[in-house]
């Protein structure tokens, strides 16, 4: 393949990268009637395979949890048996809305076993992600909105470089350029959550 064609293909593929849809941030849920503990029915099952992540869209109609911090929207995930293993839980920024996450681990009866500490969620790539080791007995994970963050603005600056090909006078050039982009959004009760489980490799 000629170099210009290769570059054009690369740019085309990059241009096709899926961009999350834009969501209007939900910041007020005071009128919602809420559960006092997570409802175990309809939990989203997570497969013990990092290539098969579980997704949940938390919108204004999502289940609501009324806890010590106030009312929060949440999604419940059923974790596979066989812990310990590594769990990745991510909040995907959706345009104007970034779900403010906190994660609570429950046993098979829905009793709280622990909550991930504040500060566990860090940006990894474009997503806000917590990585942790699940313990035996932790069978459910409630990912709920963090009421302390909801409504606050979040702004992240992103640097990028681009390469494009050009031909002139029989010569081929690669033109390198840089750009910046600022993503402004609001911490919210709504957004998309992605959970993946990576089992430990068996020692031989």
């Amino acid at each position, binding site marked *: 393949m000629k170099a210009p064609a290769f570059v054009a293909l690369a740019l085309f593929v990059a241009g096709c990268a899926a961009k999350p849809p834009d969501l209007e941030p939900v910041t007020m849920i005071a009128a919602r009637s809420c559960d006092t503990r997570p409802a175990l029915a309809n939990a989203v099952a997570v497969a013990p395979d990092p290539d098969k992540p579980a997704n949940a869209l938390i919108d204004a109609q999502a289940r609501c949890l009324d806890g010590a911090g106030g009312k929060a929207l949440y999604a419940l995930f059923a974790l596979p048996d066989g812990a310990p293993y590594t769990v990745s839980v991510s909040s995907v920024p959706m345009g104007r809305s970034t779900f403010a996450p906190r994660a609570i681990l429950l046993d098979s009866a829905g009793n709280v076993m622990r909550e991930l500490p504040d500060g566990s969620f860090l940006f*990894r*790539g474009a997503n806000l992600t917590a990585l942790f080791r699940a313990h035996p007995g932790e069978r459910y994970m409630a990912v709920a909105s963090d009421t302390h963050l909801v409504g606050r603005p979040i702004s992240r600056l992103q*640097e990028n470089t681009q390469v494009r090909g050009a031909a002139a006078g029989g010569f081929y050039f690669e*033109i390198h350029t840089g750009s910046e982009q600022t993503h402004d959004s609001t911490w919210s009760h709504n957004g998309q959550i992605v959970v993946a489980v990576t089992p430990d490799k068996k020692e031989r």
Partner: protein
Amino acid sequence: MFKFAIRAFACAIVVVLAACSTPEVPFDRSANRGIKTIGVIQPGIEPTPRIVLASDIGQSFGLIGALVDASMQANRDGKFGAMLQSAHVEPPAEFLAALKASLAAQGYQTVDIAVAHGSSSLLKSYAAIATVPSDAYLDIAVVNYGYLAAGIGDSTPYRPFTGMRCRLVRSSDGKVLMEDVIAYNPIGTPANTVTIAPDPQYTFVDFDALMADRGRAVDGMNKALTDSAAAVGRLLQ
């Protein structure tokens, strides 16, 4: 010239640092309650930061362009390094102090471990420091740090950046308890990497502006190192 080319290659590594990273190992503190004292291995970090132009015209002209770019960068690095020296600023010391503070904030005691350490990679073996009384060793390689501009225009100013690898190893058996990559102000959104967005107040439209505002330039660089050190602490909470 060859040295310049090597430095240019090293700078390119910064940008792709995360792309070749290994999968992260999250720390499980509740399963490692015995980790109370951490031996902080002298971090691998160059004494002089780099002032990187991530894309420019020279890159369009092959090896000759790369050599010219490398020469210009060496010039910028040298001037910035001399400015730090005249201000008695030592980034390695700033980073180590911030790192120990971030560990203390998470409730750990720290012990200094002085050992020869390059900035390009983590230690291959920890056998040489096995006699140091600590529950775990923290090994950090600051692969690169300094200031970076994505391009040559006013719309892509210089902003502080860092890229580092970190690993926590249990002293008793050498088991890796945590391993990760941290990038402050990376190019793109690298996978398997903790990414920290730059503080917008440290922005310099070009290299001359960076050199002209020494106090703020130093503060911005230190902020990037401090925030990266704080991220290490958060990975160990």
